[in-house]
């Protein structure tokens, strides 16, 4: 199940690339993603779909680089909805995205404790 949601190979490669900085990368990714998610939620509440789109785009980019496949796909879908002006779909997708993010953060933190 988790292998479909997160690409382990990407994470292993990042780990060997960044070595000691890998834990910093995960911390930065989580902090940044949390910030964007807040931004995204606020934008949807304010019905500001262009800001929502930017935030979703940014989440898509960074999650893709981190090998978070499911998170990446959900952000992509969010970006598409925002681009198409489908506010209701954005609202409906938001809790799903947050749930996935929280799962991902847990997985990544777990990776640091049990490499």
């Amino acid at each position, binding site marked *: 199940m988790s292998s479909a949601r997160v690409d382990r190979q990407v994470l292993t490669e990042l780990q060997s690339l960044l070595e000691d900085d890998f834990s910093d990368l995960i911390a930065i990714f989580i902090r940044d993603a949390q910030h964007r998610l807040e931004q995204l939620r606020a934008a949807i509440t304010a019905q500001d779909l262009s800001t929502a789109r930017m935030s979703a785009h940014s989440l898509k980019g960074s999650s*893709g680089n981190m090998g978070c496949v499911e998170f990446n796909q959900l952000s992509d879908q969010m970006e598409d909805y925002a681009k198409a002006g489908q506010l209701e779909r954005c609202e409906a997708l938001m809790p799903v995205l947050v749930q996935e993010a929280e799962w991902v953060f847990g997985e990544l933190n777990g990776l640091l404790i049990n490499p």
Partner: protein
Amino acid sequence: MNSSLRILIADDNESDRMILRSIVSKEGHEVILAANGEEAIRLFWEHRPDLILLDVIMPIMDGLSVAKELRSRLAEDYVPIVFLTSLQDPESLAKCLDSGGDDFLSKPYNRVILKAKIKAFGRMRLMHEKLQAHNRQMLIEQQVAKTIFDNVAHSGCLDLANISHSLSPLSVFNGDTVLAERKPDGGLHLFLGDFTGHGLPAAIGAMPLAEIFYGMTAKGFAMEEVLREINSKLRGILPVGVFCCGCFVELNFYEKHAKIWLGGLPDIVCFRAESQTIETFRASNLPLGVLDAHQFQPEFINLTMADNDELFIWSDGIIEARNEAGEFFGEDRLQAIFKQSAVDTLFSSILTAVERFVGETGADDDLTLLSVKMVDMDVLGLPDLENKRGSLVGPQDWELSYTLGPLTLRGFNPLPMVLNIITEVEGLRGLSGQLYTLLAELYSNALEHGVLSLSSALKSSTDGFSAYYAERERRLSVLTEGKIIISVSHYPEATGGVLEVTISDSGQGFDHQLFLARDVSDDGCSGRGLRLIDGICEDFYYNPTGNAVTALLRWPSSR
């Protein structure tokens, strides 16, 4: 080759930036990080990186604007820009390239592809640097060559009061050439040439052309001889398809006469000062460098010009100058200017009109305009040919004897060489035109009447001249005996010197008394020659047999 590059990474997402930095620095490159567009621009000018990895969507200033601004300010330097994007649609990707990007890298980043791209752009940048170095070297060489070229091609008297000219080169070198030189007799030779093509290849042909033009004009050669020499020279050296359209003008300020050769250039205009009207003349000759020497038969326009009448000559760059709509300026617009403009501003009016017509688009051919006015001789004064050497040293006391045998006589003209030697004497250079006519007259007498035993009587019948020359050619081609000896000596005197020229031949001698007594008003060639000999020689006599003639000339002339 050091393959390490300085690379600027601009991405607003910190984790992405961190991953990129790790990949790039692991490859041994130096990394500079920017978190937004504005910072990217500031760091670019601070560090001058070799390559930019640029996120498309960033706060403060997005990647597209950064690329546009850098491209507009980096005119010559080539700094590759690779866009980082998770955008997929073709339109967005095309926009990246339109704004000045060279490539894109899609997210998520693939380490192998990124490495390969950095390497490829490193190579491209190196090639660009080499190209630029070559380019700079070429420009330096062109500037040096241009200096030499200008010394050769523009050393004449284009600054005379009655000449206006304008050359607007498309590049350092110009395919158009304008030459002007005074003749020893006070007249003027003027030439506008337009070589096919532009730039260096076109300008190279102008070098021998200018050398011949100035050299022969200063030595007193007539326009037709100069033209023939230029034509055969260009014919010999130019590749097929390269030639020189031109207009050659010989002005005689005493007789108020212009003799014009026009080949391949647009119609020229003579503006009549008194009636304020124009006459146009059309080219009837092929350009120079097209025909072989024996096919080259120049046709001339003979024109009487009053003082202040003005000739206008232009290259087709003016007629074919195009405006934004792609229309030609055309001869009609050009000729209309003569009706509308004040007389004394014609030249500048033409240039202004063409510039205005072409507008922002700029000319796509060399634009050259030349005009020359008939003026009184006093306006110009006598030519100052001696001054060019600026010294009075040189040969002063010398003698030479030059014996020409039958094979040489068949087809060789020794006179320019002999004249060259004579005019090494400073004081005689100004007389080179008259001296040449003198030598030519005496030499042809010796050859035709002496060695070839031709009788002048042949000339007097109806088709006498052509019969005479046909017979002359025939006898020359089978000549097996006979000779001509040209003896020249020069000795200095208190001021100036004295030149003695003797031309003797192996013939029986001819009735020189008749020659000397011939009516001076005879307008044939020999008549004119005699008048001239009478004008410059202090003494002139034949030996009793009539096969040796001596001319004595003292300078400065007291006559």
